[in-house]
């Protein structure tokens, strides 16, 4: 059993009561809501005659259903319009802050909460969205929940939960130039499997993790759920504190000093023990890309599609299903595979550093003929910062479309989607069958820089050969915020 980890300490501090069924009632420090998984929760609250216990601890935005071309109201899609109108009504009625379109603070829920300083170390964070694990990047314990649980958090600011085991994912060394957190997490999932993390929280630690920027840590924790782990986290450190300082909801003055002391105390100490540990070597990881229909079906860009003989017997049926669906031959190289659509964005990779990395590849090049390529900033703030440094112009000059913020083509809940058998190079998080809106559409997951490389090449390409990628990310500071 784990002891002395950040997970254990945060769990203890947030434990409200032990429930008769054997679950623990856990206090939730930050509750994030959006238009897709909240309307039925508010309706259930009404049915029970309950109110929102802590409206100041719930924050709303709209992301999944918003168009990324024109965001004028009412939306062309009446269902999308009804969902947003319902969210607006529920937030107004219960006194919940909604960061709506045009507020300057709207965006993908897992992008805006960190950039506003809402997500802080040591908090429990819940949201009706599986990628809530993103917030673990700050040393928060953050996990996705269903709509019945959204109702429970609204009513009680708590949830009935079972405690997870803790697996430390220790990453030695340093990532190569052109290799990012996205490649690292795809490599981890490829190695441990999409069900390897079920029952675990993943603590990411080691020299390669400490060297990651906050935005890269968010990419890493975002995809913990794709490895089956409901939450993933990184212990808070100087990188975390530098990111948080000056954000709108970050403590200031003496409160900041007290916060630092508490946050530092929560980090897993040298005495911490884990239920399990797996060690990786960062330097051996290549730009990594999925070839199949689960995020675990991933290979280095310089590898070939695994044959059945190279596949564990348990995994062979889904490998065969993937060969058929993706129309890929076992043993074929992935590099050089033609793509139709290139998508840069999502809660995984729609932040400023992601756009900078992609723009560094796109700069001075042209999107290959016949390819649709577009960039969707993760939030209005990301869009403003990117535009302030001219990234939109770089993308437009290269033939990319520059869109408005939203979840876009990560999932098919807005006008952005694949058509027919199209194959996408996508910086998002899921390559499930039909995920991007066509029942026969195909998705290759990769880093934003690799998506840009595919866009300008017309096919899957090794970004390491295209550009000398700067090793040091630009500093993350709290700027341009109201």
């Amino acid at each position, binding site marked *: 059993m784990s002891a002395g980890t950040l997970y254990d300490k945060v769990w203890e*501090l*947030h*434990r*409200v009561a032990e*429930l*008769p*069924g*054997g679950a623990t*009632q856990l*206090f939730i420090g930050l509750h994030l809501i959006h238009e*897709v998984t909240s*309307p*039925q929760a508010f*309706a259930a609250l009404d049915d*029970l005659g*309950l109110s929102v*216990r802590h409206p100041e601890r719930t924050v709303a935005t709209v992301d*999944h259903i918003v168009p990324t071309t024109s965001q004028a109201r009412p939306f062309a899609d009446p*269902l*999308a319009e*009804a*969902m947003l109108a319902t969210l607006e009504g529920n937030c107004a009625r219960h006194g919940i802050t909604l960061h709506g379109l045009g507020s300057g603070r709207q965006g993908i829920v897992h992008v805006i909460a960190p950039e506003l300083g809402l997500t*802080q170390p040591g*908090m429990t964070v819940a949201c*009706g*969205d*599986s990628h809530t694990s993103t917030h673990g990047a700050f040393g928060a314990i953050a996990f*996705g*929940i*269903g709509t*019945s*649980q959204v*109702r*429970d958090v609204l*009513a*009680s*600011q*708590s949830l*009935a939960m*079972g405690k997870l085991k803790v697996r430390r994912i220790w990453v030695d060394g340093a990532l190569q130039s052109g290799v990012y957190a996205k490649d690292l997490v795809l490599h981890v999932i490829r190695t441990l499997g*999409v*069900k390897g993390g*079920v029952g675990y929280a993943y603590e990411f630690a080691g020299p390669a993790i400490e060297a990651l920027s906050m935005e890269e840590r968010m990419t890493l924790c975002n995809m913990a759920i794709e490895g*089956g782990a409901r939450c993933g986290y990184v212990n808070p450190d100087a990188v975390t504190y530098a990111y948080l300082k000056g954000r709108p909801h970050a403590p200031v003055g*003496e409160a*900041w000093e007290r916060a630092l002391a508490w946050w530092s105390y929560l980090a897993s100490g040298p005495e911490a023990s884990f239920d399990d540990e797996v060690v990786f070597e960062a330097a051996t990881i290549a730009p990594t890309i999925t070839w199949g229909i*689960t995020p675990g079906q991933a290979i280095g860009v310089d590898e070939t599609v695994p044959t059945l003989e190279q596949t564990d017997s*348990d*995994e062979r049926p*889904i490998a065969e299903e993937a060969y058929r669906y993706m129309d890929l031959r076992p043993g074929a190289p992935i590099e050089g595979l033609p793509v139709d659509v290139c998508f840069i964005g999502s809660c995984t990779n729609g932040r400023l550093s992601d756009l900078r990395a992609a723009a560094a590849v796109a700069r001075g090049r042209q999107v290959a003929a016949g390819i649709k390529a577009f960039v969707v900033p993760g939030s209005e703030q990301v869009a403003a910062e990117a535009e302030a440094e001219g990234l939109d112009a770089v993308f437009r000059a290269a033939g990319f479309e520059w869109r408005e913020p939203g979840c876009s083509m990560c*999932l*098919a*809940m807005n006008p952005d989607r694949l058509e027919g058998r199209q194959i996408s190079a996508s910086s998002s998080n*899921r390559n*499930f*069958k*039909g*995920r991007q*809106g066509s*029942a026969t559409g195909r998705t290759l997951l990769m880093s934003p820089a690799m998506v840009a490389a595919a866009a300008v090449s017309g096919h899957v390409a090794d970004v390491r050969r295209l550009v000398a990628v700067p090793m040091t990310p630009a500093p993350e500071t709290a700027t341009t915020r109201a």
Partner: protein
Amino acid sequence: MSATPFPAGPIQRCEGRAVVVPGDDIDTDRIIPARYLKCVTFDGLAEGVFADDRTERAGDHPFDRAESQGAAILVVNRNFGCGSSREHAPQALMRWGLRAVIGESFAEIFFGNCLALGIPCLSADHDAVLALQAAIAAHPGAVLQLDLEPPWVTLDAGSDVQAWPLNLPAGPRRMLVSGEWNGTAQLVAHDGELRATASRLPYMNAFAAA
């Protein structure tokens, strides 16, 4: 589409025909494609259940076969319900008529979402699930009897009666059989405990001096 009432109160057993959806890692996007999530109630979700898979199979999907109609128990393999946290997935299955799921393993969020609806997800080892699936295939339309205490499934095809032990963790099992699986009232009732917990979390008071 569901003729039987939704789960309510103590859940100790479930009886009905089975529908088998074989394969590992069946994600919630496949159970209910995202376009069906454009709604503000769960009412119409039954029509979207496995929509794309059913189109692809052109009438031959397990959910479209004659012997599956009216089924109450879904039988799956490993890591069923992975991916998106959408409660729309178990809601769609429930509204189609399902009241329990048996499989080799389940994704955690899916398991919890089912529990919150009073739908038990019971597991068994690989060989047992394959044997159960084979027995269902051999006796199309046969009725399964599912018990939660102890967890056990019996297939009664007249001359051929087979049974397998199942697993359901003690906590969820207690919640289901006691009827306390929908615990909002219980959480809300702990007002004093909630206040005490909030008071020891420094961020709840903006890190003000003690």
